């Protein structure tokens, strides 16, 4: 069992290690490992304007997606949670899961069909790109929130706050939002990780000037290998950072709810 586990870990880690090695290698062509050592490729990243633009686009898309997800997701989750009828809650959950079940490619083709029409000529625009990311990531936030509302007994907290004299607005902002702050944060980490790594939809609906970072990466691999490796390592570092922050927030949240 242990041997199998180690083999599997090597299998997982090998491509990543190769990428890291490749990003510091001078020449890498038709050999298992690159030759020579250089920081040249990282320097080249900073000089590449289309890469920097892609990076900025990704950051912008992630930020706006996160904000919209919270603004839509928190009230939606709240409405689903407080809706006492079982059937309505089930339907809500189902709808929130649909984008997860439907392949991104299908969604992207739908976007292309719909938004390349004369009536809705928005294909290639940033708002549409963001809208796509919202559709893809919102269910994850929604499900995190719904599960936590259950475990945190939000319904009881609200009922008690009501009995203590708190009207709807007080209850929502004094109790619901602060109680769910760790859940929102850990849900957003997932949202950010998904959004930053998202390729299929972005590749199909983004325009030339608002390509996201992963979309740019694909182009980069047509060029110098070392450059592409370095660019991928940057993305990887971001993902690892997001996962680390996510784990930290989840732990803090776990401690707070005892």
């Amino acid at each position, binding site marked *: 069992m242990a041997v199998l586990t180690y083999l599997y870990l090597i299998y997982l880690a090998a491509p990543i290690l190769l990428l890291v090695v490749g990003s510091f290698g001078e020449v890498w062509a038709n050999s298992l490992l690159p030759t020579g050592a250089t920081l040249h490729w990282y320097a080249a990243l900073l000089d590449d304007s289309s890469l920097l633009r892609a990076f900025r686009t990704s950051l912008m898309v992630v930020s706006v997606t996160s904000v919209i997800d919270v603004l839509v997701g928190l009230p939606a989750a709240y409405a689903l949670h407080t809706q006492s009828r079982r059937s309505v809650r089930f339907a809500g959950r189902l709808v929130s899961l649909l984008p997860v079940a439907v392949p991104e490619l299908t969604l992207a083709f739908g976007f292309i069909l719909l938004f390349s029409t004369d009536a809705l000529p928005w294909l290639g625009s940033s708002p549409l790109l963001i809208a796509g990311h919202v559709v893809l990531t919102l269910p994850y936030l929604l499900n995190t929130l719904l599960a936590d509302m259950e475990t*945190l*007994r939000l319904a*009881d*907290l609200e*009922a*008690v*706050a*009501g*009995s*203590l*004299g*708190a*009207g709807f607005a*007080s*209850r929502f902002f*004094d*109790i619901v939002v*602060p*109680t769910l*702050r760790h859940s929102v944060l850990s849900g957003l980490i997932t949202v950010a990780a998904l959004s930053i790594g998202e390729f299929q939809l972005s590749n199909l609906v983004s325009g030339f000037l608002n390509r996201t970072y992963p979309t740019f990466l694909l182009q980069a691999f047509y060029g110098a290998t070392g450059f592409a490796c370095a660019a991928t390592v940057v993305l990887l570092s971001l993902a690892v950072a997001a996962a680390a922050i996510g784990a930290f927030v989840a732990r803090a949240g776990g*401690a*707070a*709810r*005892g």
Partner: protein
Amino acid sequence: MAIHFQNVTYRYPGSDAGVFDVDLEIADGELLVVIGPSGSGKTTLLKLLAGFLEADSGRILVDGRNLAGLPPHRRDLGIVFQSYALFQHMTAAQNVAYPLKVRGVSRQQRLDQAGLALNRVGLAGFADRMPVSLSGGQQQRVALARALVFSPRALLLDEPLSALDAFRRVEMRDEIVRVQRDAAIATLHVTHDLEEAMSIGDRVAVMHGGRMLQVAPPQVLYDAPVDRTVASFVGKANMWDATIRDAGHISTAFGMLSCDTAGWPSGSAVIALVRPERIVPLASPDDARADGAVLTGELRRDRFAGPIRRFEMALSETVLLGESGGYRGDIAAVQIPANAIRLLSPSTFNPSGV
């Protein structure tokens, strides 16, 4: 009357469960405990009063004011939940101060009042603790202080002790009574724990199948239950079908017993209720005292459990259940004192066809 349920009916949509035609009054300062098996409607009653549910018919008055249509936050009632429901992101003091905050009391004033309220429940020095660092009993005290700090018109307790372990439960039970007496507030306490209900209630209301069967002080409930259901719910009971023979005597399957038959005409069918601890064990029939039938039978079971000794004696077809505190001798016969027998009407209430 501080709280008054008048003919209140509520049926859960799409089911037969709910509460039906409930009439109940709770006086100022009275601690009334509602008890019943799960599904009996006791929590529904609390939710109707709190405003989490709205009655289909009937009225609920608090201090003479009809609560119909008022949302929970306008009813001015303090509620303590089984799950404590403390706000985890607030300190103990902030939790207690919250009802004052939403009422617009200034920050300093509300923290002062919260401090006093925490003192009253024995939590001085815990003001700055977060709920997660408090024990279950301490959290429940915070919840109690929070429910009382704004001087509500009534206190509602929804199984407040069932999340605590047995030892803390008894301690917290006394604490609730003390604080409730202190505040002299009309209190509706819902529980399924019989001992809890009997030991703290000024009066106890027994619910079954959504109906209020009897509301009475604990001792009356135990000694003079209105029917078979209440009798068996509030304690162990021997209940025998019997017929009034003449004034002062009833006949049963195992012979004649003497008891008070005032109010029952001869020949009417009754149920004779005898609590096990009222049955007197005897080493020999000759030990009998003056009053009450002496019966001999086969001792079926004899279990010593420390403070209590339980025995069963077979009298022809009937098995009699007895309990004794200090009796250590043989049991060859039993005596049933006349005043231990309580006659009930055999027409038992049959809630929703169960």
